[in-house]
């Protein structure tokens, strides 16, 4: 991961026309190239409103958002889409084409990629999303999990360096969720900056390296996953229940320092190493 910031959010305020309160209030963030970030918080906490600023779907009421050197206030979404891919929660809100091929090449065509460029991008992203060989399939006949991956693929084909995915696993079971997130992790390892919003803390603890907690329009916690999940009080205020391993670790090993996120297997090892349980 480089130290180069790719997204800078400075004193961002945003207010919907129909509401009196700010939906995002004084948010400051620096996101570096290659990070894997989860933004968590309840519905209405402002997390979707925040991420919609990254590709200019929302323009700041006050403050500014700089993405890859571009002030989002000065560029329409159709232009920012080249740098920031934004995948919506419901894949059925974007799928319109007769074939997977047409669906995926829609974005690149809008940007003005050449035929060869589109063809190579198509091949690459279908491979990455494990949809190879399905170019001629009817998108509406795919399973929910496949449609979700198609939605990601159709964004990836525009070759954005930043990928924002809003609630990638809603309505999917654990196996599908893990599969999708595994593919996103692969993209992250190839250098994409990945930002997800989610309610599934188990997924966060497996995949995210940095967690941002939002509550009532403000960022209240921002740090490495293992540190955020140990801040029980702030999480409770944000109505978030950390994964049970963290709660258990907090109670059994209150003083331990964690240098990376933990899973049940890791906790078992820690308990044995600390001599809490013996063989």
């Amino acid at each position, binding site marked *: 991961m480089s130290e180069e910031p790719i997204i800078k959010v400075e004193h961002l305020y945003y207010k919907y026309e129909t509401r009196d309160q700010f939906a995002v209030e004084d948010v400051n963030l620096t996101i570096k190239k290659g990070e894997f970030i989860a933004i968590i918080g309840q519905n209405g906490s402002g997390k979707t409103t925040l991420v919609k600023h990254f590709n200019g779907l929302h323009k700041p009421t006050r403050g500014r958002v700089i993405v890859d050197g571009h002030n989002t206030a000065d560029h329409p979404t159709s232009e920012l889409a080249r740098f920031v891919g934004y995948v919506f929660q419901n894949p059925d809100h974007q799928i319109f084409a007769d074939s997977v091929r047409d669906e995926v090449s829609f974005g690149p065509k809008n940007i003005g990629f050449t035929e060869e460029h589109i063809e190579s991008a198509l091949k690459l992203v279908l491979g990455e999303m494990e949809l190879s060989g399905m170019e001629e399939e009817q998108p509406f006949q795919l399973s929910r999990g496949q449609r979700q991956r198609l939605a990601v693929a159709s964004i990836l084909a525009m070759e954005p360096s930043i990928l924002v995915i809003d609630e990638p696993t809603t309505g999917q079971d654990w196996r599908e969720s893990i599969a999708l997130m595994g593919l996103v992790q692969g993209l992250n390892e190839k250098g994409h900056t990945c930002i997800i919003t989610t309610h599934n803390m188990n997924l966060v603890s497996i995949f995210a390296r940095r967690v941002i907690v939002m509550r009532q329009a403000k960022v209240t916690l921002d740090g490495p996953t293992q540190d955020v999940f140990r801040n029980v009080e702030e999480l409770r205020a944000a109505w978030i229940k950390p*994964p049970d391993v963290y709660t258990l670790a907090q109670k059994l090993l209150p003083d331990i320092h964690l240098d990376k996120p933990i899973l049940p297997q890791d906790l078992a090892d820690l308990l044995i190493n600390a001599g809490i349980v013996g063989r």
Partner: protein
Amino acid sequence: MPLIELKNIEFTYRGAANQSLSNITFSVEPGEFIGIIGPTGAGKSTLCWVITGVIPQIIKGKLKGTSFVKGMSSRKTPVATISQIIGLVQQDAEAQLLMTDIEKEIVFPLENLGLPPEEINRRLNYVLDLVNLRSECQRHPFYLSGGQKQRVAVATALAMEPEILILDEATSELDPIGAEEVHNLAGLLKKKLKTVLMVEHNIDELAKVADRIIVMDKGRILMDAPVRQVLSQVDFLQSLGIYPPQVTQTAFALQNKGVNFKQMPITVEEGMQAITRVNHNV
């Protein structure tokens, strides 16, 4: 007499190549709280539709086997009649509400049943208090949170005074607060001794309320057993793509390293006790 009795149910959707349900046999006794888990496509929703007669009366396909609700065949008895015995709450909170405010929503099926206004009033007040939505009862569903919408759906089903309530992934599209609202309501119904069938992804929550869990995959019932027995099968659940409670997973990992537990813990409190107890034994 069991409330629900299914025997050798097989079902194939019209135009589909494969069976969505095969060889399903189980029964539900009054007062039971049953959880149904399984990956997407296991046939859980299809099963709920067969029980309520939505299949084959509204959604068509090839159905074999017998399905009885209180002795009535759910193939032939109109869905409207069955829905007075079984209340069904579905996944999509938005699409199952039809009216412009909560009060009208709850009242609508009662008017359809031809109940007198006094009786409708009594039931309306009862369910509004039960799901705690009295102050919101004039609001348009558009303004409600997902959890509130699902509570309205539960209230609407309960107002028909069914003997069984089926929650078909009622929480899967909700945020944690919304899911907790629905789970709390499920816990409340358990106390009121209602028979509940709950299809759910979140097995931790199911563990708190269910007596019995049915595990499904690819249209079949793989396991039908008491909660603890199912949850302790960590390997089996993971192979099905079901995420067991993390505490149980931790205990399982310890067990693989030679630590013995009398009973697999599920909640954090149980985990604390079980692990400290092991510690004392050493």
